[in-house]
């Protein structure tokens, strides 16, 4: 057999590729990341670069050790993972947080499972969770926005000190996130309405002018990136919509029943990493289920868990935990939610033969 | 104390009796019924390609674990899977089965002695006295019985040739 005929049809391709998907997701992340970098200045920029670099270098190292072609790194998945970790970190965290995160995500979260496509858990969220549990102090040291060019923003030299030498952060800038504040204040039996009235301004939160992770703060820009992904057909609506809808519903119900103990749904939707999680993290194809129904269940589960952990759990933020939890369920959900096959009933049995009466019935096209 | 001793003794005695009865009632007969079952699944041409003098000894060897499940070339992969099912073994762990062979008669040498015809257990050789014989590949199990009896050495055992019907796409090269 000649070599020229060694593969079969189709002899055409839509032209998509893994790297183009990954790079388009990165592109969609540019607005919110750029805004976060501007908001938190040089220390954030350093941390971002270090984290991405760590992820890519770890990927190269793993490929080398696993004797895989080095150019696999060009698929962009390592860059995207590093990027996602970076924008969920406290912006002024020390450099080694980023390095450990990048290394953990790629080496343990991805390559140990067998490389791209084989991991059960979202590597970026796995790394973030690991960091949060191992280094709770560094992972919860938030700073108030200090946009570049303003008086409060640290200069280049100062920033090098913050990121690489663990120089102390100027006192006026430290601050808790709205979620963290709510959690600690509720334990002091202060009503939720009061806490939020003091600490939470919806429009500021929506635009991103609040304390938080590097790229999670601006809901508006995240939505912009998500719109791009929808337009390119890279993500489907099922997971984000189900996730946001379930979170909205449950927070609305609890807030409606008891305003003093539970925050309203707008607060939940615009705080923390919910939107980033819904559009960029839960939609990770590798760790989310396949069929549409399964995606809806998966998304709804994520939203529900976020609320449960935020409200009754030990951590103020819950996106990473919920996504990881649902990741572990994805194969199970997939198993029970297969799409119906043409010519078969939902259970998999062939469609029944038409009775002569049915056969005789006039049928036409549905328009 | 006495209660405990009594209880344990009673338990021991009860279980012992149960075991004894089970041994009587569920005793396996001298010949393992599995052997018969496996023999029925095999081609039954007593061809000896496995190295045993017939299908029954081979079936016994399989049950005793003396040979792997891939012992029978005429049975091929299909037999391996049937056996794996009733023996509860993962068919993936069984190695490749040797390609079954078929007999080919060299027409220029055949004298039409009908010896092979008589030796063939599946009537795969056709012909008549004094006429050149031919092999029906669909019926040939590659048992070599004809090969052994041919006085003219005109029979060769070859792998079945690939045809347009038997060809299929190979597995793509590893990704």
């Amino acid at each position: 057999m000649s070599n020229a005929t060694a593969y079969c049809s189709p002899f055409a391709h839509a032209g998509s590729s893994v790297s183009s998907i990954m790079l388009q997701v990165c592109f969609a992340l540019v607005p919110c990341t750029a805004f976060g970098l501007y908001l938190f200045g040089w220390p954030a920029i350093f941390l971002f670069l270090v984290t991405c670099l760590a992820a890519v270098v770890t990927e190269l190292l793993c490929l080398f050790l696993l004797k895989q072609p080095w150019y696999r790194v060009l698929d962009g998945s390592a860059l995207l993972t590093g990027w996602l970790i970076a924008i969920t970190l406290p912006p002024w965290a020390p450099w080694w947080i980023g390095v450990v995160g990048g290394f953990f995500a790629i080496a343990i979260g991805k390559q140990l499972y067998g490389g791209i496509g084989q991991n059960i858990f979202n590597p970026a969220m796995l790394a973030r969770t690991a960091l949060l549990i191992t280094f709770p102090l560094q992972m919860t040291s938030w700073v108030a926005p200090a946009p570049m060019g303003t008086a409060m923003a640290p200069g280049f030299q100062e920033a090098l000190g913050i990121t690489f030498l663990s120089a102390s952060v100027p006192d006026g800038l430290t601050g808790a996130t709205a979620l963290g504040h709510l959690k600690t204040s509720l334990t002091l039996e202060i009503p939720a309405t009061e806490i939020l009235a003091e600490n939470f301004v919806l429009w500021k939160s929506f635009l991103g002018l609040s304390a938080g992770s590097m790229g999670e703060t601006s809901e508006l820009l995240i939505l912009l990136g998500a719109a791009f992904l929808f337009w390119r057909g890279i993500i489907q609506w099922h997971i984000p919509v189900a996730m946001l809808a379930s979170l909205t519903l449950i927070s609305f119900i609890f807030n409606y029943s008891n305003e003093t103990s539970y925050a309203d749904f707008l607060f939940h939707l615009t705080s923390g990493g919910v939107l980033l999680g819904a559009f960029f993290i839960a939609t990770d194809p590798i760790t989310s289920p396949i069929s549409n129904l399964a995606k809806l269940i998966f998304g709804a589960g994520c939203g529900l868990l976020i609320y449960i952990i935020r409200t009754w759990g030990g951590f103020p933020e819950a996106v990473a935990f919920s996504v990881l939890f649902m990741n572990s369920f994805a194969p199970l959900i997939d198993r029970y939610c297969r799409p119906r096959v043409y010519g078969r009933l939902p259970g998999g049995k062939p469609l029944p033969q038409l009775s002569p009466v049915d056969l005789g019935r006039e049928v036409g096209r549905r328009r | 104390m006495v209660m405990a001793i009594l209880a344990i003794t009673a338990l021991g005695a009860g279980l012992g009796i149960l075991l004894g009865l089970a041994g009587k009632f569920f005793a396996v007969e001298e010949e393992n019924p599995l052997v018969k079952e496996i023999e029925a699944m095999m081609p039954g041409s007593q061809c000896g390609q496995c190295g045993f003098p017939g299908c029954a000894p081979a079936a016994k060897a399989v049950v005793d674990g003396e040979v792997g499940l891939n012992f029978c070339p005429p049975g091929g992969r299909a037999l391996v899977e049937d056996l794996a099912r009733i023996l509860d073994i993962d068919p993936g762990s069984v190695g490749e089965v040797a390609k079954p062979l078929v007999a080919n008669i060299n027409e220029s040498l055949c004298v039409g002695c009908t010896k092979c015809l008589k030796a063939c257990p599946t009537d795969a050789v056709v012909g008549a006295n004094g006429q050149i014989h031919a092999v029906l590949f669909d019926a040939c199990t590659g048992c070599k019985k004809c090969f052994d009896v041919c006085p003219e050495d005109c029979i060769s055992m070859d792998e079945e040739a690939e045809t347009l019907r038997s060809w299929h796409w190979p597995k793509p090269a590893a990704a």
Partner: protein
Amino acid sequence: MFHGLLKLPQVRGGVHPHGHKDRSAALHILKTELPEKLYLPLRQHAGAEAIPIVKVGDKVLKGQLIAVAPSEVSAPVHASSSGTVIEIGEITAAHPSGLTSSAIIIQTDGEDRWIDLHKLENPYEEEPLVLANRVAEAGIVGMGGAIFPAAVKLKQGTKHEIKTVLVNGSECEPYLTCDDRLMREKAEEIIEGARLIRHILRAYRVVIAIEDNKPEAIAAMQAAAEAYGVIEVEVVPSRYPMGSAKQLIQEITGREVPAGGRSTSVGVLVHNVGTVYAIYEALVYGKPLISRVVTVAGACVARPRNVEALNGTPIEHLFEACGGLESEPAKLVLGGPMMGIPLPSVDVPTIKGATGVLALAKKEIPREESSPCIRCASCVEACPMGLLPLEMAARSRAEDLEGASEYGLSDCILCGSCSYVCPSHIPLVQYFQFAKGELDTKRVAARKMEYTVELSLAKKARIEAEKAAKAAEKAAKKAARKKTVKPTKPAAVTQVAEPESAEQQEETA
């Protein structure tokens, strides 16, 4: 009843590959010059190989029967031009394996002289079965590429109740325009053919389905169909694989063919427009299927167009008719790019199922090294059958054939939509082809085993019977010798005769 309640969704999935149809669709169908030699394979159809009835050296006429069908599911072969049979032997088959197939080779004499044809003045007066037999004698097979004998389908239709004759003119494969051109140029003949099929099946209505990217063909068919109320021309959206029978039936009737069933089970019979035209020619003029319209296209072809090619014409001859090849093709394909088969060389002949021959340049077949699956589910969205191609491929790759079947391998129509969209460039279709092939091989082996077990048992029984017969004979002789008185021969004979006849019975059985 339950089925009626079940609302079935519209055609799912599918892809929109670039058409590449403009150039070949713009030109008239070209009649090619007579090639010097014609290579007519004995199997150009699904089913058993035809058996030659001519010898080397025989003179044959155009349209003469040269090989007959040995069984119902098969098709005869006719000489596609007049000349001399110069060889009956093996030629490179139009098949990706590069293996050979047996063929009759005819040296043409240039006269192209027809055999006497038996015309039918009014085919509508004939019995349906007579007409179906006429289609069978003409060697007509499914010309959309399925190559299933057309007459078998027609006869099936006479057994089942067929409401709708669906004429498939959707031609969803890129590059191919042979059906488009045929509909534009032979609209009336196709309509007449469709009416004849309706007559054979006693069907209620005829629907001609055409994709919306062929406005000229739609106009031509509508004009030709206007005179007959029962013939509807339906415009269907251009979406691959709309031309697949199952998807087209779903689009037109809203019904799904039950898994494992045939189109006839939902009261529909599908024929390609090329087949319908061939049926018309056979029924009205008595012409056997000896030529067809073939699209010659691809970036390497100088002037892509449709040609009417005699069966058995080497495809090299077709390329020459279209201005030759401008550059070395990266891939020769028989059929369309989505489901066609790669060809080993330009020497292979045109066969009855050849919708097109493509000489594709490297730039047209973007093929990258495949990378691991990222479970993006693009294939799930593209699959028109609602399968999970990624799961099937993963199992086929691990040679877990049972697992692959459990995920619906048998429902896969090999349309290639999944491979087309896969961002990891995984050759999904080849995994399915491989797994299906392995399953087939196993089935064949299992059948052979069963057969040989039966044979060996039969032989054993026969030998036992022979032994018993011999023993009985011996005993009888002994008894005869002992009795010095008159031997009771008649009794002995009957005794012997009994097992012998039993044995004979077994042998014939």
